[in-house]
């Protein structure tokens, strides 16, 4: 009778066991990798294809509001709350049409001087903080940025007022299709979204979108389609 060799683990099963253990104890996602989803056509302009938690994404250009709605639409549809802070005269019907779930939207109108504390409080519970044109000091902005990172929210200042370098800078310009000289109506809008930023987002990127398209959807725009639509619209 000999003793069974199985009692002594050989090197390969030991390594397997270690690898398995390594898999088990590794966090499923690293904090920096966690990001909120965006609509498919916008993925190519954002680092990691989404809105990174803890980052600041500024949106400006003449179509900043529509682009902002498009940016938060997918995440709100998946249950993230969106706070719109400091906006006057905002057209939420457009937000609903661009896919934002209005039952996940809250509007906050902070009195002057309370913007920073309001945003800090909101960051506790709400994922997406969209901020209209407000005035804050650079020191407050740095503190707010740190708070956003800590709470893993996303701060989206619209306009050019954010005094600190933002992680991602988006801007949108566009032209309308469908309106002629005395006839037609606004039907679709072709929008060019340009993105820069810092670190991984530093390389300039751009994408052409229908925001919205003729069927109300947000899709990638290709040139031939633009031309044919333009001709049809006269």
């Amino acid at each position, binding site marked *: 009778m000999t003793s069974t060799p199985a009692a002594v683990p050989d090197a390969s099963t030991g390594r397997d066991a270690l690898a398995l253990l390594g898999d088990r104890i590794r*966090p499923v996602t690293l904090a920096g990798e966690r990001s909120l989803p965006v609509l498919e056509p916008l993925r190519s302009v954002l680092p990691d294809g989404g809105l990174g938690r803890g980052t600041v994404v500024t949106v400006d250009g*003449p*179509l*900043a*509001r*529509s682009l902002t*709605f498009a940016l938060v639409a997918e995440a709100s549809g998946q*249950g*993230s*709350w969106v706070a719109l802070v400091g906006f*006057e*005269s*905002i*057209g*939420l*019907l*457009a*937000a*609903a*049409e661009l896919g934002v*779930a*209005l*039952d*996940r*939207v*809250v*509007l*906050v*109108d*902070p*009195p002057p001087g*309370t913007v920073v504390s*309001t945003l800090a*409080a*909101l960051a*506790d*519970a*709400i*994922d997406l903080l969209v901020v209209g044109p407000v005035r804050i000091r650079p020191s407050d902005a740095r503190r707010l940025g740190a708070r956003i990172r800590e709470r*893993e929210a996303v701060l989206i200042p619209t306009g050019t007022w954010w005094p600190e370098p933002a992680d991602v800078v988006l801007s949108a*310009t*566009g*032209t*309308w299709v469908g*309106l*002629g*000289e*005395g*006839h*037609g*109506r*606004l*039907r*679709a*809008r072709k929008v060019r979204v340009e993105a820069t930023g810092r670190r991984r987002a530093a390389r300039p990127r751009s994408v052409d979108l229908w925001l*919205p398209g003729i069927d*109300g959807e947000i899709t990638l725009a290709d040139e031939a389609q633009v031309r044919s639509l333009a001709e049809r619209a006269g």
Partner: protein
Amino acid sequence: MARTTVVWCPDWPVVASGIDRRRPVAVLGSGRVIAASVPARAEGVARGQRRREAQACCPDLVVVDEDPARDARCFEAVLAAIETVTPLVEILRPGLCAFATRGPSRYHGGDAAMADAVGEAIAAVSVDGIDARVGTADGVFAATLAARRRDSTARLVPVGATPAFLAPLPVSTLAEPDLVDVLERLGIVTLGRLAALDAVDVVGRFGPLGAHAHRLASGLDPRPPDARPIPPDLDVSTEIDPPAERTDRVAFVGKALADSLHDQLSSRGLACSTLAVVAETEHGERLERRWRHEGALGPAAIADRVRWQLEGWLSGSAASRPTGGISRLTLVPEEARAASGRQLDLWGGRATGGDRVARSLARLQATLGSGAVTVPELRGGRDLRSRVVLVPVEAVELGEGGAGEGRSLEGPGPAMGVAAPWPGRIPAPSPATVFAAPVRAELIDDQGQPVTVDGRGEPSAAPRSLSVEGAAAIEVTAWAGPWPVDERWWDPSARRRQARYQAITVDGLARLLALESGQWWVLAVYD
């Protein structure tokens, strides 16, 4: 199984309101009838009706708003009367209290004699004959049901007969609407049928709620046998110096005590289900009352009960009022159950659910003031501004599972008219900026004259340039219109006639313009 006696005063909020019960009276809470007097019920007033419905049933109905503090204050007199029979009374809610039967029953020579004694004691204190019904059975649940029997002899359920007493009663007595609904659809319509099921199967299908219901239906103690005893050092107590005679001052202290009690219990994973409120006065009197709750008492519920109790003591009749101010207030958790509160993730993962958001928004709302935090709601309409309404966040319920359903103030389902066609509304895509106050503008034709639209909707000329708020005119490259709208012509105050244009200027911006009473306005910007 503890034999228990329940004293039930029907329509207690009506009795406490102090209005003659021979008149039709209804007590309203949150806009709905929560109690009605016998004459009102005879006219068709029922619980859950709205004020209008109740008044339609009975035009001379006297309507009173609910006031739990008033209910508790008036009930204190009844409790004082019962205390002449037995010292340990637990209040379930104002109008309903329970005590253990064994001692007083022996003293008075049987359950029936004791019930008579209780009835006489209450009759002695009440001025206009409070209707108090005494039910005795095994356990609070059965005793409460027994007290509701019409026939006073049937209110005494003999020892051991409780399961037989409960068996023919409908499951709807369980007061768990969701569970009852499922049970009824499964054909389990009486408590007897529920009790006949195997307890293990019921737990497997319905979880802890089912187990609780099964124990109640079987006439068993609803508390599971392994209910944890409370460590004795959890009482919270505070000195009040100088002694307070006014309810609001003591209640303020009570609020802080309630919070600290709840914190202590929840840090041990417990929640209070029976609470004793003990007050000592500067003259050495000791007042004590027990409040019992079917579920677990939260901090606000504890604070409410403390306040009601203090109202009862300090604002009661001269006979029951303490002779001095209250110098010490103690809260004793007498029974607890495992807290089923929400546990956050180990890594602080955030719940996307509404609870956390609702809490946070309520806090924010409290700091920023009313109207600063709003949620949007879609409505039907032609005008862009009327199609989204902003509702203050305190007026909506942002609960778990999203606010989508319960959000409408009018009741369940989407708000009115969203799906209706609304001919004449501006078609999608909608503008992202809709001015709350439209901006003055000037739409000018080739000759430099303002564009006008006549009564038939014909424009005077094609627009050439647009000037917003007196700024330099910019060229209009594309436009469409006029799209006339003539709304509410039957109502002189709300009537509106507009001719609307969509226009794109040379800088690429699209705007929605309107001509109303000879003045051009920018209603919205497509930005």
